């Protein structure tokens, strides 16, 4: 069954509206503008070629994002040999971890209670800040973190792709989470709470 032309126009419009956000996330993962745009383009074409596959079982955004993740995994695999991870980047700075704890191993400060961002507008702001925080991560750290948490790859697979040891992978992920936590706490949860009183 072919979709009616008006439906196709509508689909085109909806996909166009999604494109910038998809490119931004692909870019956060791949750290390469051209590859990010190619992956998104491939994902959008895949949807347009077989629109009947998207039967409204999820939102269009969820559907395209799912396809995009596969395209990105393909891209990562295709060029994993060129982008060997250099362990040095985030290796030596234990500061991120050390700064959190006193000498006796207790936390320096009580972590703040984070509420879930409520409502669509608040979520939109939250994700904007999350993106900024992801951009601030060192490139290799961000790549590992995005592979784990956005592409939802298993740690073993990430280690294999990037030729890292599991232990190294876990530490990189831990550091990424601590950095993101600090960034979100400062730029989102701190503000959200002071605005609400």
């Amino acid at each position, binding site marked *: 069954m072919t979709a009616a032309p008006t439906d196709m126009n509508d689909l085109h419009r909806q996909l166009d509206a999604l494109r910038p956000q998809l490119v931004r*996330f692909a870019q956060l993962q791949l750290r390469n503008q051209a590859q990010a745009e190619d992956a998104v383009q491939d994902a959008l074409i895949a949807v347009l070629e077989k629109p009947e596959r998207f039967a409204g079982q999820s*939102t269009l955004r969820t559907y395209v994002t799912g396809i995009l993740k596969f395209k990105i995994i393909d891209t990562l695999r295709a060029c994993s040999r060129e982008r060997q991870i250099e362990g040095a980047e985030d290796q030596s700075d234990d500061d991120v971890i050390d700064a959190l704890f006193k000498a006796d191993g207790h936390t320096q400060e009580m972590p703040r209670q984070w509420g879930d961002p409520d409502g669509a507008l608040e979520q939109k702001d939250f994700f904007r800040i999350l993106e900024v925080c992801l951009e601030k991560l060192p490139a290799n750290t961000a790549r590992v973190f995005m592979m784990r948490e956005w592409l939802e790859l298993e740690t073993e697979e990430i280690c294999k792709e990037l030729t890292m040891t599991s232990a190294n992978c876990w530490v990189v992920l831990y550091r990424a989470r601590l950095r993101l936590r600090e960034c979100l*706490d400062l730029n989102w949860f701190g503000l959200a709470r002071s605005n609400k009183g």
Partner: protein
Amino acid sequence: MDGIKPTCREVHRLVSEGMDRELSLVERTRMRLHLVVCGACTRFDAQMGLLRRAMRSAPPPPADPGDEAQP
């Protein structure tokens, strides 16, 4: 293992590693017993949960439900 009673430093690390690998029974028990009595680690655990949920739902839906349909 750093001692008889785990420190927040150890439990923070276990909370994160527990997201990436299966913890051993001993690690899980140490972590859980500590979480019962430690507000700081419990909050950290909740923050890590929210971070994971946020990443898995990214990119977010547009703020206005009409946005996706607009050029």
